[in-house]
């Protein structure tokens, strides 16, 4: 299995287009950092309009932790496209090149082959996320420094102490890895049905875009069904940035407001991953390979 995985990883990272994703993330993160560095104050004024009417904000608001939060919020909706580029190409790409039939003539079971391909796309997703963490968190910490963070929700503001943030990011990135692997599994499943990678890539993105829009719209009908969309649970990483309060209403340092809900969402994503990957393996095992 290990050698199969190494072969699949070699195939992924041999292709120049794989690195387009890494370059794209570097470009987007750098541009956001530049924009915040040059004009971040005005962005903050817009964001904190209501609050600034009553309060003076003291401290370094535009610090590395806050910048990373903005980048993650922006990027985690778009990174699935970059994941789909590779995951949806795993089977369809081979079929398109005509190497799939040759591949399954090797003395390796189809199940093992599929698992190694899925694991390779999961490793790619995690590496992309690690790259994003290096740029958006660590580089932002170097450029903007560190301080406490303000998490502005629609109806409340959560203030986090400087020493109470880094571990939340570690968990948030781990959660984001689970979410991106779910996207990879969806692309992987759709890849089984096609002989050209474009179809599954577009289909994966369409599913994510449609579900994300429906779950974001504040319309009662969509609010009732949004918990069935896996995209609703993809932003569960934000749950790590909310805190519990004690009887006096003071935030408890080191707490997570609703950990069971975050774990439940992670469970939903994992269940989708097993469902999509399992379905892909089952279908592929029975598929008549003609290309």
């Amino acid at each position, binding site marked *: 299995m290990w050698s199969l995985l190494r072969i699949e990883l070699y195939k992924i990272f041999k292709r120049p287009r794989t690195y387009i994703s890494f370059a794209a993330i570097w470009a987007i993160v750098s541009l956001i950092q530049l924009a915040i560095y040059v004009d971040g104050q005005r962005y903050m004024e817009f964001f904190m309009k209501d609050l600034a009417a009553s309060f003076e*904000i003291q401290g*370094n608001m535009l610090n590395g932790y806050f910048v990373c939060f903005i980048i993650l919020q922006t990027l985690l909706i778009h990174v699935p496209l970059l994941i789909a580029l590779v995951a949806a190409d795993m089977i369809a790409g081979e079929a398109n090149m005509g190497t799939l039939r040759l591949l399954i003539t090797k003395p390796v079971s189809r199940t093992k082959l599929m698992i190694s391909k899925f694991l390779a796309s999961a490793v790619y997703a995690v590496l992309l996320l690690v790259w994003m963490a290096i740029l958006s968190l660590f580089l932002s910490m170097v450029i903007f420094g560190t301080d*406490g963070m303000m998490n502005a929700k*629609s109806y409340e503001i959560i203030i986090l102490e400087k020493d*109470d943030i880094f571990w939340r990011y570690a968990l948030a990135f781990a959660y984001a890895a689970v979410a991106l692997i779910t996207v990879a599994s969806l692309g992987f499943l759709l890849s089984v049905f096609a002989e050209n990678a474009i179809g599954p890539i577009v289909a994966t993105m369409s599913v994510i875009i449609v579900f994300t829009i429906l779950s974001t719209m504040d319309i009662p009908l969509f609010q009732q069904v949004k918990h069935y969309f896996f995209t*609703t649970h993809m932003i569960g990483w934000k749950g790590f940035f909310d805190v519990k309060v004690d009887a*006096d209403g003071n935030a408890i340092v080191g707490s997570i407001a*609703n950990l069971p809900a975050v774990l439940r969402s992670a469970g939903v994503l994992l269940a989708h991953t097993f469902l999509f990957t399992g379905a892909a393996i089952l279908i592929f095992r029975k598929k008549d390979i003609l290309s």
Partner: protein
Amino acid sequence: MFMRYTFLFILFFSVTSGFAQDDAMRLLQKVKAKMDRVNDYAATGKMRTDVVFIKAPVSNIRVYYKKPNRFKINRDGGISLLPKGGVSVNLNALMLTNDFTALDAGKATIAGKELRVIKLLPLQENSDVVLSTMYIDELRLLVLKTNTTTRENGTYEMEMQFGNYADYGLPDKVTFTFNTKDYKLPKGITLEFDDGSKQQQLPKNKKGRIEISYASYQVNKGVSDAMFK
């Protein structure tokens, strides 16, 4: 006859109110003289924020003050939200920066203590403070409570408790009560995680409170200007 009584009444009222005003001014001067002994201070303490839409932990703070009205609160390792208004949470600035006239408003009992009530009216027309009412302990020459109305930032109230640093007129605990405005951001911008918990209905225009408990002061040891940047 009637004219004579009216004249005497006006004369009596003017004289007594003049005395009362002088008396109020004298008491205030004494309180000011006591507070004037403080040129600067650096203090440590804890700050508690009680605003309906803010979740903030009790935090360690460092407070810096320099005459006449420079005041800064630094939260250790974090961001702090302080109610707007330059004189917020700081009695010295309120007392020492404004040219004002003082009016005696009688006496009031707060927490079993009889206090002198003095109203301060700023003389400058462009002053942000419109009216300030002070409740003063005449024996100890300490301001225990103020109620201030401003042009821009509404009305706020300060209650002080004194202990170890009462000789300087510096409180051990300050409770600052102020009006808050509503807070709301569109969900489309915040893209928040719905954890299924029911969002509680926040009361409108509830008062916010900030409590500062001072642990120690370093008085007149010099405070660098860099602390106020």
